C-alpha cells in the first residue's frame, strides 16, 4: 500500500517539478541579478547603461546616510505599524472574534466590503479612492452640501491617513479569513463555560481566544509585514509627489525610473529585503519561544 501511495505521489511530484524549477530559476536569476547590480552604478541610459562599473558598497553607504531615504523609512515604519499590525491584524482578530461571539448577527454585511478590498485590482481601487478624496471628489462634495468648510485638498493634508486606511481595507480580508478559521478551532466548551461564568466578551478575547490562536497571529504578522513594507501601487497612483506618503516602494521607483539609477534602486530593494528579514527572524524567534 505504501508503494501505491509512493507511485501516485511520484506522478504528482513529476508534474510539480517543472513549474518548481522554472519559478526557482527565474526567482534566483532576479534575486542574484538585483544583488549584483546593487554593487554597480548601472543606469537605464547614458554611458553607465552600456558600461556600468562595480563601485562596491558606495550605493549602500550613500543611501543609508541619505536624508530622503531616512524620511521614507520612517514613513514606511509608521505605515506598516498602523496599517498592517494595528489595522489589519488587530482589527482582523476583533472582527473574527465578534462574529464568533455572536455580536455581529449578519457577518455578510461586513464580509462583502472587506472582501471587495481584496478582490478589486490595485489600480481600480486607487482611482475609486481618488474619486472620493480628490479636490472635487465625493467627500468634499458632501462637505459642501452640508455647508462645512472644506479643508481644500484631502490628499494634501491627510495623505498619510488616507493611504493607511486604504491599506487596512485592502488587506483586512486576509487577516479576517485567517482568524475566522483559527477561532473556529478554539474549544467551544471552554468559551461556553466562560460565558456561563459571566466572563465578559473582552476578557474572553484576551484570555482565551488570543492565547489559543497565537501561532496563527505570528504567521499572519510575518506575512502582512512582508506585504506592507513592499506596498507600491496604490500610494504611487494616488499620491506620488506627496511628501508624507513617500514610502520606500515609491522612493525606490523614482530612483529606478525617474532618475534612471537602477543600481542605486537595487540597493534600496536589498535593504528593504534585509529589513523584512529581520522582522521575519523576530517573529520566528517569538513563535519558537511560545512553543517551548
Amino acid at each position, binding site marked *: 500500500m505504501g508503494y501505491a501511495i509512493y507511485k501516485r505521489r511520484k506522478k504528482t511530484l513529476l508534474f510539480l517539478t517543472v513549474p518548481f524549477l522554472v519559478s526557482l530559476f527565474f526567482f534566483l536569476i532576479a534575486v542574484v541579478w538585483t544583488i549584483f547590480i546593487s554593487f554597480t552604478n548601472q543606469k537605464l541610459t547614458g554611458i553607465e547603461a552600456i558600461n556600468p562599473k562595480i563601485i562596491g558598497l558606495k550605493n549602500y553607504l550613500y543611501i543609508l546616510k541619505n536624508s*530622503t531615504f531616512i524620511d521614507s523609512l520612517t514613513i514606511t515604519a509608521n505605515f506598516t505599524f498602523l496599517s498592517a499590525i494595528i489595522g489589519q491584524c488587530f482589527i482582523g482578530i476583533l472582527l473574527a472574534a465578534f462574529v464568533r461571539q455572536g455580536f455581529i448577527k449578519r457577518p455578510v454585511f461586513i464580509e462583502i466590503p472587506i472582501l471587495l478590498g481584496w478582490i478589486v485590482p490595485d489600480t481600480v481601487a486607487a482611482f475609486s479612492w481618488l474619486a472620493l478624496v480628490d479636490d472635487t471628489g465625493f467627500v468634499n462634495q458632501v462637505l459642501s452640501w452640508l455647508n462645512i468648510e472644506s479643508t481644500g485638498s484631502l490628499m*494634501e493634508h491627510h495623505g498619510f491617513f488616507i493611504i493607511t486606511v486604504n491599506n487596512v481595507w485592502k488587506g483586512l480580508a486576509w487577516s479576517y479569513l485567517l482568524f475566522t478559521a483559527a477561532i473556529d478551532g478554539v474549544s467551544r466548551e471552554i468559551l461556553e463555560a466562560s460565558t456561563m461564568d459571566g466572563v465578559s466578551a473582552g476578557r474572553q478575547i484576551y484570555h482565551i481566544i488570543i492565547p489559543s490562536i497565537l501561532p496563527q497571529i505570528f504567521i499572519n504578522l510575518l506575512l502582512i509585514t512582508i506585504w506592507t513594507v513592499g506596498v507600491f501601487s496604490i500610494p504611487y497612483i494616488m499620491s506620488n*509627489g506627496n*511628501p508624507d506618503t513617500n514610502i520606500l516602494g515609491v522612493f525606490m521607483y523614482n530612483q529606478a525610473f525617474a532618475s534612471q539609477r537602477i543600481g542605486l534602486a537595487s540597493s534600496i530593494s536589498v535593504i528593504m529585503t534585509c529589513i523584512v528579514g529581520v522582522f521575519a527572524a523576530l517573529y520566528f524567534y517569538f513563535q519558537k519561544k511560545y512553543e517551548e
Partner: protein
Amino acid sequence: MKKLLVGTTALLSMLSLLAHAKDLSVMYGETFADAIEPGIAQYEKDTGNTVIRQKIPAATIYDQKLSLDFIGGQAADLMLVDSYTLSSHVEAGYLRDISPFVSSWPEWQSVYDNFKNSVTFDNKIYALPLDTDVRMMYYNIDTFKEHGIEVPWQPKNWDELIATAEKLKAEGVEQSLLIPVGVSRGEETTMQGFYMLLLGADVPTDDRNRLRDWNDGKWIVDSPALRKTLGFYKDVYMDKKLSPYSAYTQSYNLAARVKGYFDGSVGIWFDGSWRYVEMFFNTGVEPTDELIAKIAYARVPGSGCEGCLDYTNISGGWTLAMNEKVSDIEEAAKLMEYIYGKEYFTNWINASGKISTRGDAAESEAYMSNAFVSGLTDMVKGTTLRDTYPGYLIVTQAVQQMTQDIVDGKSVDEALARYKESLDFEFGADNLKTYE
C-alpha cells in the same frame, strides 16, 4: 512528389511569416499622432509594407518607457525622443547616426542651424527636430476682468506677479498661481517651473542663473539664484498658500485643470506654448470661439534684480530618431523621409500651434497667418536650452526632489543640502561648485 510540394509550401509560408515579423515599428506619444501618422500611411500605400504603430497614451511617462525599451532591447525602429534625453541616449549607443541619409535631404537643409546643432553630436546627426516651444503664464481674460485686474496683464517682476496672485486668492480663486512642483510630474517641474524662475533669479554672467557652469564644467549646487527660486516656491505653496501643491501630485487631472481655467478657479498657470492647442485634446472641453477668446498669456518676468533678465524663457522640443538596432536601415530611412516630408510636417505644425524648427514650413502662408504662433516670435528669439549635459537626468530629478522638500515644510537650506548630497554622490565634489 505530393509530399515534397506540401512540404515546400509549408516552408515557404513559414518563411513569409518570418519576413512579416520584420515589419518596421514607430513609437510616439498620442499627442503626436497627427505629426507621424500621415507619413506612415503614405509610406504603406506606396510600398505595400506594413508599419507597426506604437501609439503611447498621454498618461504614460514616455521618457521612462523609452529608456526601459532601450535597455531591454525592445525599442521600436523609429521613435520620438524628447530633446533633453537625446545626449544620454546617444552616449549609451542606443541611437543610430543618420547623417548618411539625411544630409542630402532638402527637408534637412531647411532646418534652422540651432536645431541642427541640437541633434548633432561629434559631427554626427542622430535625430530630426520636429518642434520647439516657449513657456508662459496663461490666464483667463474673463477671470481677470471679473476680479478687477487690468488686461492685458504683464507683471514686470516677481513681486508684481505674487501680488496679482494674492489678489486673486483673496477674491476666492482657489488655484491662484500654478507652478509645477514635486517629483510626480517629472521634467515638467524642472522645465515649466524651476528653470523659468531660475533664469531670472540672478544675472546671466558666468551662468549664475543656471544649473551648470559651462565654462568650469561643473554643476552648481548652491547659489543666490537657486535660493531665490526655492524661496519663490516657499512663498507660493507654503507661506502664502496661493495654490494647493496637490495640483501637481500624481492625481493631477488635466481635464479638471482646463475646466477650472475656463470656470475661473484657476488664476495664473505656468505652462508651455503647446498647451494653447492641447487644452482641447482629450479633456472633454470643446474648442469654441467663445472659449478661445478667453485665453491669454503673459511672459514670465525676471525677479527684478539689477542686471537680471527682464523676461525668461527656455525651449525644448521633440525629435524623431532611429534605433541603433533597426531591423532594416534602408527602409527605416525611407519611412523617416516620408514622416518628415514637407507637406505632412507643414500641415501638422500649422494645426498644432507648435513652433516650427524648419524654414520650409515656417514660410507657409498658414503658418505666417497663425496669430498665436506669430505672437510668439519675440519669445523665440531670446530663448535658451536646458543644461542637458550627460547626467542631466539625475540633476533634474534632484531639482524636482528639492521643490518637493520645500512643500514638505523643509527650509531652503535643508533642501539645498539634500540637493548637494545627491549630486555629490553622482558626480563627486570636484565636479560641483557654489556661488556666494
